[in-house]
Each structure stands twice: as C-alpha cells, then as structure tokens.
C-alpha cells in the first residue's frame, strides 16, 4: 500500500492519496473542525459506456441505453435487505447518481461513520438481481424518465446535445427510454457489473470528520481484491461539424428556454487549459462582461442566464443557457462578442479580474465536504491533481486564454436548442 500526503500550503489544506492493495484508489481529506463526513465510492462507468469489451475478448458487447443508471438503482437491492434499510440503522443520509461518465454511491453522516462505510463498501461489491426485482425497477425508473420528459431545463439540454453530436453517446438520455430499459435483464446487469465494478476502475473519496487509519482498517476488512483488467470502450466516429444547426421542442413553459452550444474538438486537457477556458468564458459572458450586461439591458435574457465548459470523457463543448423571447438574437450577440474578442484581443484588466474571481470561487468550494469528495473523484477519473486548479488559476498566462479563444470557440460549430411554449400552456 502506498500513502502520500498532498498539501496546499497557502490554504492550509491537505489530503491523503492511497493505493490500496485491493486495487482501489482511496483519497481521504480530513477536515478536523467539521461535524460531518461525506464518503463517495464511484466507478468510471456512465451512460456513455454502451459498447465495450475486456482486453482479450473478441467481440464488443452492445448494451441497452440507460443500463448504467439502472444498475445504480439495482445495486441498492440486497439478498436479505436493501442498502437503505441498513443505512436506516446508522442514520446516514445516502444516495447515488449516474452521470455521462461515472456512477457514484455516497452517504453523509455525523455519527457512526464506520458502520456506514462498511455498508457502502459492502453493498456496492455485492450485486443481487432477480427477474422480479428488475421488473419492479422498470416501473419506478419509468416514472423517473417521465419526470424528466416534463422538465424543460433537462429537455433543452439534451436536445442541444442531440444537435451538437451525431454519434457520440453523450447525446443519449442518462436514464435511457422506457423502451430501452425494457430490454434490460439480470444477465446484462451482471455483465456490466463485472466489467466496470472492478476496483481498479473505481475510487473511494472521504472528506470531513475522518480518521485515516479508521478508513484504511475498514478498507482492509471489506475490499475484495480485484484482478487488474483492461476495459476497451468503443466510441463511434464523430464528425467535427454539428449534427443539426437548430432544434425546437414545444412544452408547457412561460418563456422560451434556450441552450446554445459550441462544439470543441475533444482531447484530454490539462488543468491549465481547462482554467484558461473557464477564464475565457468568464471574460466573454460573466456577470461583469459587456455581453451579459447588453443582453440584460436589451431584455434578451434574465438572471437565469448561465454558461459552462461542458467537458467529459470523449466530449467537450461550451454551453450557454437561459430564457429569452428571442433566443436566435442571443445567439447572434454571442457570435458577435466572440468575433469581437478575436479581432480586438482581451483587455488585461478583464483578464486579471476573471482570474481573481475564479480563484475566489475555487477556494469557496472547499467549504463543502460534498464538493471536495466529488472533486477528488472527478480529478481522479480525469487524471488530474485536485489542488492543481489553484495554481493553474493563480499562474494562468493570458496567452493561454487567447489560445482557447482561437482554437476552441469556432462559431461555425454552433448549435441552438429552444423549448417554446405550447399554445394552451395554462
């Protein structure tokens, strides 16, 4: 077992990075003054992993859309009792989520941490599926899917992904469809489980009130050593241009919603590159930018306006979202602003302000044990060091921001998704 203490001197914060003998990577971030502990056990397996094989196997397996999320639900079930019933005896607040590229099981607690951690490590390592329980879950997830179909924020986002991407599985809804989940059975679940829930493909992150040795003792006791295996994922070719320029859906909403995306070429980015992109977006469309204030003054957006650098395994895009009576005009103004910066360059003053703001926000995020544990997991799966973000912002050169502007904001690769009100929405 290898154990290393990683420090950030300026902030007085630190965490342990541990290679456990079982094959699992463990991160422990003690916060001595905290009352609660947050633990998350995750696998590098999400909704986009629908086609895969283990190294050495001949054929790729193609599985139904939504199966990673279905598996997440089913793991809570046990032969004797489900995980929630077990957590009920410790008082922990437990949950799980599936994203595009990972699935994670978590709890937070203020007392009886050791027992809850044992439950977490145990149930995630103990799959139990039967035809009856699979069928029952189809009813529950069916309602979850319908809930999202009525959610305009969710719809406008996924419609944009469908417009940006032709083949990339990021365009698929995380929960799948009522039809796709009907194809799921116990055997398929076991097959996905065996491939992706190997400890070498997973990580455990604990933050808050925690004693390192206590975690390691429980890990020694509970973790079943995994043989190292290599997963080969098969992603279809993705053209560089967008799939569709503009998509519209009608739903019962008051004001039209929009998501505007610019597709970027995917490559594994360094932290400096990611920070440069975030600074760029802050300069371009942040609350102190000319663009944001003009859009507000002209009545084209309201305070729901937001933007993000949407980046995961196999995909990256810049996305702007909000509500507007004239979404196409918003898009026009965004394009204009990007071209303006390309022509006129970026002011030093704007750059310095963006840096300061990003730095402060990154520091603030360390208030939350939830943010820390999820951030550690995310950094691990992206091969980045968690504290790296602070230096990457503090020492960010302006040229890097300019490079992102020219390399990754190509206004010819823009798509817009709009959700418009239906006539009889009231």
């Amino acid at each position, binding site marked *: 077992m290898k154990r290393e203490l990683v420090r950030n001197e300026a902030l007085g914060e630190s965490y342990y990075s541990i290679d456990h003998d079982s094959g699992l990577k463990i991160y422990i971030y003690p916060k001595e003054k905290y009352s609660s502990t947050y633990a998350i056990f995750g696998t590098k397996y999400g909704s986009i992993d629908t086609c895969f094989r283990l190294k050495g196997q001949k054929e790729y397996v193609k599985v139904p859309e939504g199966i990673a999320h279905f598996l997440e639900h089913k793991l809570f079930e046990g032969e004797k009792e489900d995980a929630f019933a077990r957590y009920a005896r410790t008082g922990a607040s437990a949950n799980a989520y599936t994203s595009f590229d990972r699935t994670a099981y978590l709890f937070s607690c203020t007392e009886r941490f050791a027992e809850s951690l044992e439950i977490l490590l145990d149930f995630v390592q103990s799959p139990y599926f039967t035809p009856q329980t699979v069928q029952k879950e189809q009813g529950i997830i069916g309602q979850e899917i319908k809930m999202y179909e009525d959610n305009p924020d969710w719809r406008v986002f996924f419609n944009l992904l469908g417009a940006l991407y032709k083949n990339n599985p990021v365009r698929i809804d995380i929960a799948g469809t009522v039809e796709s989940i009907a194809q799921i059975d116990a055997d398929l679940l076991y097959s996905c489980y065996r491939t992706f829930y190997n400890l070498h493909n997973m990580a455990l992150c604990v933050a808050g009130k925690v004693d390192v040795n206590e975690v390691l003792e429980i890990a020694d006791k509970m973790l079943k050593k995994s043989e190292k295996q290599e997963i080969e994922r098969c992603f279809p070719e993705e053209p560089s241009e967008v799939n569709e320029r503009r998509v519209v859906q009608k739903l019962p909403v008051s*004001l039209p919603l929009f998501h505007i995306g610019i597709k970027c070429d995917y490559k594994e980015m360094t932290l400096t590159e990611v920070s440069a992109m975030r600074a760029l977006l802050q300069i371009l469309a942040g609350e102190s930018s000319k663009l944001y204030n003009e859009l507000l003054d002209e009545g084209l957006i309201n305070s729901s306006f937001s933007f993000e650098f949407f980046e995961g395994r196999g995909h990256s895009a810049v996305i702007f979202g909000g509500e507007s009576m004239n979404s196409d005009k918003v898009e026009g103004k965004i394009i204009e602003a990007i071209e303006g910066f390309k022509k006129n360059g970026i002011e030093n003053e704007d750059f310095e302000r963006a840096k300061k703001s990003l730095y402060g926000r990154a520091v603030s995020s360390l*208030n939350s044990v939830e943010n820390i544990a999820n951030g550690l997991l995310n950094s691990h799966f992206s091969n980045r060091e968690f504290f790296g973000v602070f230096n990457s912002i*503090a020492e960010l050169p302006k040229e890097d921001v300019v490079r992102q502007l020219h390399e990754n904001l190509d206004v010819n690769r823009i798509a817009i998704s709009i959700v418009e009100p239906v006539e009889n929405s*009231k």
Partner: protein
Amino acid sequence: MEIRTELLCDGVDFISITEDRFLTNRISANIFLPLDKRDVSANAILPFLLRRACKSYPDLITLNRRLDELYGARLFAEVDKLGEAQVLTLTISAIDDRFTISKEKNTAACIDLLCELLFEPAFENGKFRQKDIEQERRQLIELIEGEINDKRTYARNRCLEYMCGNERYGINPLGTKDGVKNLSDDEILEAWRNALASGRIRFALLGKEDDGTAFEIFKEAISKIYRQNVRDCAPEIVGATGDVKEYEDSMPVEQAKLFMGFRAGIAEPDEDTYAMVLTAALFGGTPHSRLFLNVREKLSLCYYCAARYDRRKGVLLVDSGIEAKNRQKVVDEVIVQLECLKKGDFDDSELNAAKLYVANSFRSVFDSQGGLERWYINQIFDRETLSPDEAAARIEGISREKVMKCASQITLDTVYMLKGLN
C-alpha cells in the same frame, strides 16, 4: 462556535456566529414583513432592485466588476416566505482575508458594500431610477411566470393557493404578474422606506472572527432610519376544516403531479414543533419512510413520494409524481400509512431510524455556511432558539406516544392534481 445576538433598536437585531471552519465569510440583511396582497409585489421587487446598484457602484456592470475584485464575492437577492412572513434578503459571501493572494481586506469591504446596497441605493431625484425599475419589473414578471416551468413547484403553489386561499400563507411571496406590472415608482419607494422603518430586521455575520465592525456599521446605518411600530408576522394556525377539497388542473405533461395538503394544527411559536417534524419524517421524509417503502418500493407507483411539514405554519404536504390513472391508489395508500401511524402500527426500529435521520440532518447543518446562517435566521419567530445539537437532542427524546398523538392531529384538507391532457 460562538453565537451572540444584539439588539440594534426595536425590531432590529444583529446575530453574530463566529466559526472558523469555513474559508469564506457571509453577511446578510433579512427583512421580514407580513405577507399581504396589498404590498407583496412592491416588496418583492426590492431585493432585486437593490442588487443592481448603489451610490458608489451606480450600475450593474460596475457593481459586478467590484464583486470580481472581491475574489468573486457572491451577492444574492432573494425573496422567500417564512411561515406567513415575506422575507427579503441580501447576502454577500466571499473568501476570508487569510486566503486572498495579496492579503487584501476582503471581509470589511463586503460589509461596507452590503450596507450601502441596502441603505444607499442609486437614486435619481430621490427615487429609484426608471431604467432600473423597468429592468427588474421585466425580470420579476418572468420569474413569476417561469414558475410553471417546474411542474412540481407549480403544482405545490397551486395546491397552497386553493388550500390557503383565505390565509396569508396562500400568497406567493414573489407577488403577482399584474401586481408587478402596475407598480408605480412611488409605491416602490414607499415599500423600501416602509420595509426599513417597520420591518422586523435581522442582520447576520457568519465568519472566522467578529471584531465588532459589522455591528457598528449596521447600527450607524439603522440609526438614521425613523423606526415605527414593527409589523406583526405571526402566522394563523388552522386546524381541521371539515370536508376534503379536491382540485385539478390539466396541461400537456407526461407525468401527473399529486399534492395532498394536510393540516397538522401545530406550529411555532405556539408549541414545540419538533415532534411533528419527526412524525413527518417517519411518514414520508426518508428513503426508509412509510411512503417511500410502500408507495414507491412495494407498489412501484412512483419515483418519489414525500412528506414535508412546515413547522412555521402547521401545514404538511405529501407529493408524488404519478400516472394520473393511479391517483386514487396513491391517495388511498397515503391515507392507509397515516392511519398506521395514528394507531401506533410502526415498530421501534422505524422510529429510531427516523430519529437518526433527522438528528443527522440537523447536525450536518454545522458544515454548511449557508445552512447554518439560515438555521439561526429562520428561528427569529420561534418560541425558543435551539442549536442544531439541541434540536437533534430534542428529536432523540420524543416518545412513540407523542408521535401517535401528532399523527392523530393530522387531517387531510385538500387534494390537488396537475395532470396531462389525455
């Protein structure tokens, strides 16, 4: 952690929570006014108007640039409801001086800024500027209209409008579209003056240390206001009302949203409400509650079915996203589960699980700066102020008889469903 409350003048206090576990400090001004149809819209626009500009930073872009310089300080304007009070809040949160790169004094600057935003708006001829009013009027109307986008929130508001139509509780704290549309600049100015003169006000500072600066700054500012009688925000507690009322709306949606509104008959500041909090958790507040285990897990009727009790009004809402055709099945099962609680048909392990869960959620509040601040601000009208630990201990001491007694007080008042067109 050290907590100190000091009175600035009648109806205005300052609460200081000294706690060094966080990397940021948080300062807020909270004004409580009784929800009232006559001025709800004028009050609602105030935090958003104040968030736009002040004397030193006379427009939004200048103000937002200032926030960037304060290391990305966050400045929130919020309108909410607490019991039957309308709450107007301005909050600023920024990293502590220890963590600024060039050792700038971030916190003192934030306190000054918040104070100026509240007391010295960017006026023109003694009034809010027309341009600012129109901008915030448009956005507030969009916010009110936008509530329809989230079907769960929309259905909850509709249910409460029907159930509490004759109570202040049924009033949307954001106001109404027509109300906002017709606001005159004089009404807005008067609302601002009245809020400062007769609102119940609580300033809060949550940070590593409190050197007394914030108290002095707020005290100085409020001393210039001619304070009048403080408006009363006490809620009306309504018990069983007789026949169950049923309402439906339809809209092109895939999933129906069911809300069942119950009267719990118990609310602050009249009674210790923690036993009802526990009863609601046992009923439908956890993933091992009666509603989760039966409506979701056993009958597979939904993805969520939850109970929430508002202890500042005495209303308990159960809600679920369902197929419209299953409405009666779900309603019946919810009633069956409530009857079980009334009869004491639950075992000690279930009760203990609910206690652990609620106690855990209370104690977790210590680790969230926003949550901790809210915890203390929101107890402003309670019969007593408890720390999260004290409240958790209170929960742990509740007997099963007490829970049965609470359950037996819960009566169904209104059933509301938002359903699809087919």
